[in-house]
């Protein structure tokens, strides 16, 4: 299976904010999290990405102490916390539905954590007001959560967690309930807040775009397993398997068989140049991003791309202003091709016979087993 994750590649574990080693979580017969190994560095903006039910939220809740692992070790800055209750951990959470206390006003909500830790009333109140202004809610201290908009509630939840100066801030789908424009605004704000505070943010999302734009590193999970950890570029350009290739961004996944270290054979027998580490005869999929493909007249393929080209027919074209998105039918499947649209660019109408080609460094061969989408 192509799921060797890159857990070992973050400095040494003493510096790591969170170290998860061999953690499994079962609910009855259901394995929610399956032998996950993960290190999150101090000061990192880290995303856990995956479809619903993939185990990302359970993993986050285990870091928070709201669930305990069935097996494995969980450390925060080197201290084992596996079965420590949440109030004994140096982490705080921004909950998905914010979980603001409805019977307290904004100030009391934000001051809650400090008071619980024994701060005096006035200390707690002044630290809370400061944090409330930091999230730009100054003047709203006396309001009840029900009198705030979704975006404002989100900020209160953020302030309520951050005021405790957690060593790691956990965010569970923090932007899920907001509308698009607000979400984009909050993305930028969260990112700059994280940079300003220098604290690790670990956030869970099912939105790959959100993960790509905000995070230093992303962990992709599926069916309880950690598939890949890496930067946005690594995940996008070098996915470890079919699932990651398909889940991150848009791609064409073309079934093929390995011929040798440089060649693969497609379903219709076409040989394509594609350097790969797999044994001859292995079933693979070639991931080809729509924007990496060029389109042109059938007999117009540049010399150097002859070994990485296909013939096909345009079946559909969509104009998006900055680009044209073509659906090109090759023998056995449709492929998506995206080209920059300029006033001088040639447009191919549906029905046109075309050639498509790409740089051989831009295709990427992934093992086909397991995670089909």
């Amino acid at each position: 299976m192509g799921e060797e994750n890159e857990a070992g590649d973050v400095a040494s574990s003493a510096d790591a904010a969170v170290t998860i080693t061999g953690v499994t979580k079962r609910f009855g017969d259901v394995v929610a999290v399956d032998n996950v190994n993960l290190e999150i560095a101090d000061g990192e903006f880290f995303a856990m990405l995956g479809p619903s039910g993939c185990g990302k939220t359970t993993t986050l809740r285990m870091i928070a102490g709201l669930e305990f692992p069935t097996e494995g070790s969980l450390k925060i800055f080197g201290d084992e916390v596996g079965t420590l209750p949440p109030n004994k951990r140096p982490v705080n959470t921004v909950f998905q539905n914010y979980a603001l206390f409805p019977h307290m006003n904004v100030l009391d909500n934000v001051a809650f954590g400090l008071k619980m830790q024994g701060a005096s009333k006035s200390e707690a109140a002044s630290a809370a007001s400061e944090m409330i202004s930091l999230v730009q809610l100054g003047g709203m201290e006396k309001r009840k959560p029900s009198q705030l908009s979704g975006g404002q509630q989100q900020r209160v939840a953020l302030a309520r967690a951050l005021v405790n100066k957690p060593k790691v801030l956990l965010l569970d789908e923090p932007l899920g309930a907001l509308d698009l424009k607000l979400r984009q605004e909050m993305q930028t704000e969260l990112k700059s807040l994280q940079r300003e505070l220098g604290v690790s943010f670990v956030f869970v999302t099912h939105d790959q775009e959100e993960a790509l734009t905000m995070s230093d590193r992303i962990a992709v999970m599926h069916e309880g397993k950690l598939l890949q950890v890496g930067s946005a570029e690594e995940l996008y350009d070098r996915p470890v398997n079919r699932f990651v290739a398909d889940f991150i961004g848009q791609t064409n996944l073309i079934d093929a068989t390995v011929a040798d270290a440089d060649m693969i054979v497609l379903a219709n027998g076409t040989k394509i140049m594609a350097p790969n580490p797999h044994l001859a005869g292995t079933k693979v999929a070639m991931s080809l991003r729509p924007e990496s493909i060029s389109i042109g007249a059938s007999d117009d393929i540049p010399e150097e791309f002859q070994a990485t080209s296909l013939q096909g027919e345009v079946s559909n074209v969509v104009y998006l202003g900055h680009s044209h998105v073509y659906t090109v039918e090759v023998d056995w499947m449709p492929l998506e091709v995206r080209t920059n649209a300029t006033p001088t660019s040639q447009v191919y109408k549906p029905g046109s016979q075309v050639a498509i080609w790409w740089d051989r460094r831009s295709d990427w061969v992934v093992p086909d087993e397991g995670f089909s989408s």
Partner: protein
Amino acid sequence: MTTVLATPELEATNERQKRRRGFFLALPAYIYLSLFFALPLLIVVVYSFATRTRSGGTALEEWNLESYRKLGEPIVTDILLRSLTLAIITTVICLVLAYPFSYFLATRRELTRNIMLVFVMIPFWSNFLVRNYAWRVLLGNDGPVSQLTEGIGLGETTILFTPTAIVLGLVYGFLPFMILPMYAAIERMDWSLLEASRDLGASGFQTFRKVTFPLSLPGVIAGSILVFIPSLGAYVTPQILGGGKKTMLGSYIVTQFLTARNWPVGAAVSTVLMFVMLMATLIYFRKGGRTL
């Protein structure tokens, strides 16, 4: 069919029609309640200001506060104090018993929950009077409870016809009224709030004090009122289990109306009782209703 464009005027007419339709639907209940509830209530209040005639009748012509003045006499204040004490003790015991039970109930699976709720309500299926006589047998000198305490060497139980028996009976009778609203309040609580509290550093006990309890307060207040009010005016239980030895408010009122034939005093006590209950209800809406 033609489409009618909704103009503001049309909408206003619709609104009016809707309101009128609602009124007609509610009319039977309006009439019933005014005739058989509001009117008798008014009569009670009016009578409380009237005078008892020598022959035991009621003279409505002479309005005065004589009956209310009578409430200040030691006999009546004693009864009032005793009733208040027993009602408060009953309410507190119900509260202490019902809270953990309701919490437990609210955290069960739905099936378990429903079965347990049915068990809570089963006593209502038999007559209240009959159940009180059953308690009399239970607590009697030769009853099972007495036999048990004698058997284990604690001696005879002699609580029948004491205030303890009254409280036992009242707790038994009104406990479901405490459990149901409490359960409803706890059940609809957002459990992620408790997680948030723990996450923010609160211990289990702090979470209960600062989050769980305040959020269940509407249920606690509603339950307390539902237990306190009928306990205060209880008649059947004090009569049967208290043996009518030490009179409580309910018995006193009955005596005033039926035996002493002093309707104005009976009416005055009833009016005061209603006033206390009204106050309790108002407190509920001020304190508890706000967080609902």
